């Protein structure tokens, strides 16, 4: 028992205090990959049923729906080229040169951290797809989180709603900067330390501000759901709802941020 107690103390201190064990953790994680493969089988069967056992009617409906959506998106994109050129010209006028163009990699969620307190996902892409720790993760709705650990075949992702996670954001309407902190509940972020007089309203979209250089600028993070301005308090109490489908997404995008010089105007 003493031996085990000593080992536990050493492990806890090494991991919590000095982050010394990340290498050995990755090795163990790779060894444990079969556990995740087997645990993923029920989900895979469900997905197979979804693709193979659908009626012709639903497929036709799906197809029509996707066609309509595609048309709308294409229509919206027509202006994008000229807007991008515009943006590049204006940026060059302002002498700020670098524009971000991001590459993405589609990954599949193969696991969820079993402990409901930890908001972590396990993805099917790892070291072999050159995923790196700190890499941002998005879905169709917005920012989901960042990569925490990478093993050979899997990556572990921390979601923005985890109680230990914070993301620098700004209000899309006017550029007010803030920090959105996770609360440990999947549909709620809190924004702390915003002065009660700051111009921020219910329904405001919060996007990544790019400060801290972890997340690329301009991805939607959350919409403000409630603001409580108590005259007795120095700061307003603001809560927001993440725009990404954190508890439903099956396919997600890993963003490879590249600093690229874009030739404009």
């Amino acid at each position, binding site marked *: 028992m003493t031996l085990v107690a000593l080992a536990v103390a050493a492990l806890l201190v090494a991991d919590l205090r000095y982050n010394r064990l990340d290498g050995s953790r990755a090795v163990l994680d790779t060894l444990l990959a079969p*556990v995740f493969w087997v645990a993923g089988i029920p989900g895979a069967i469900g997905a197979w049923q979804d693709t193979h056992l659908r009626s012709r009617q639903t497929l036709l409906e799906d197809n029509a729906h996707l066609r309509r959506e595609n048309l709308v998106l294409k229509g919206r994109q027509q202006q994008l080229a000229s807007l991008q050129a515009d943006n590049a010209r204006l940026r060059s006028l302002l002498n700020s040169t670098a524009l971000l163009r991001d590459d993405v990699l589609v990954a599949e969620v193969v696991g969820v951290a079993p402990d409901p307190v930890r908001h972590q996902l396990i993805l099917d892409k790892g070291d072999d797809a050159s995923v790196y720790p700190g890499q941002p993760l998005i879905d169709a709705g917005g920012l989901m989180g960042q990569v925490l650990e990478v093993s050979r075949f899997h990556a572990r992702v921390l979601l923005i709603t985890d109680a230990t996670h914070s993301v620098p954001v700004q209000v899309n309407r006017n550029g007010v900067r803030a920090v959105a902190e996770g609360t440990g509940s999947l549909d709620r972020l809190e924004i702390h330390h915003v002065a009660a007089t700051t111009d921020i309203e219910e329904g405001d979209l919060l996007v990544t501000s790019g400060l801290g250089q972890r997340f690329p600028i301009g991805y939607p993070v959350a919409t403000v759901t409630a603001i409580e301005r108590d005259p007795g308090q120095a700061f307003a109490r603001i809560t927001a709802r993440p725009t990404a489908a954190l508890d439903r997404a099956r396919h997600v995008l890993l963003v490879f941020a590249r600093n690229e010089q874009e030739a404009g105007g």
Partner: protein
Amino acid sequence: MVPGEGASGYWVILASFFVACVLAVLPLGPWLAWLRPEWLLLVLTYWVIALPHRVGLVTAALAGLLMDVLEGAVLGQNVLALSLAALLARLLYQRMRVFSLAQQALTVFLIVGLHQLVCQWIQNLEGAGARSFLFLLPAVTSALLWPVVRLVLRAARRYYYVH
């Protein structure tokens, strides 16, 4: 784990631990996840009670290390919690064997509850603790599932002559 006692059926024990690991990471809905029984602890408790000369603290510590990696917890959290639980099971195994099923389930409830408290304590050190007492729910579900786990593992142990 004395080798001289006969190394029969190592793979049965290993397989049961593997299945427990898979069940422990099987994706569940956000609400169901609070109810997830501590499968690994249930299997460990069974083997400690049935074969205390083969499965003990060292097995518990190793299983805990694997669980830490699977859960993404701080390394050492489950090592400590599972070792304490195994120690408790080890101290109680002679009584557990003569207990009725209900009494066994109650003991399992206490063991799992202790395990959950230790895990919670370490998560609080890290600053990621739960904010309600929901983390104690697995103790209830584990106790309710104990008869099933015991039945299945005992059948496997007798069928494959693991002793």
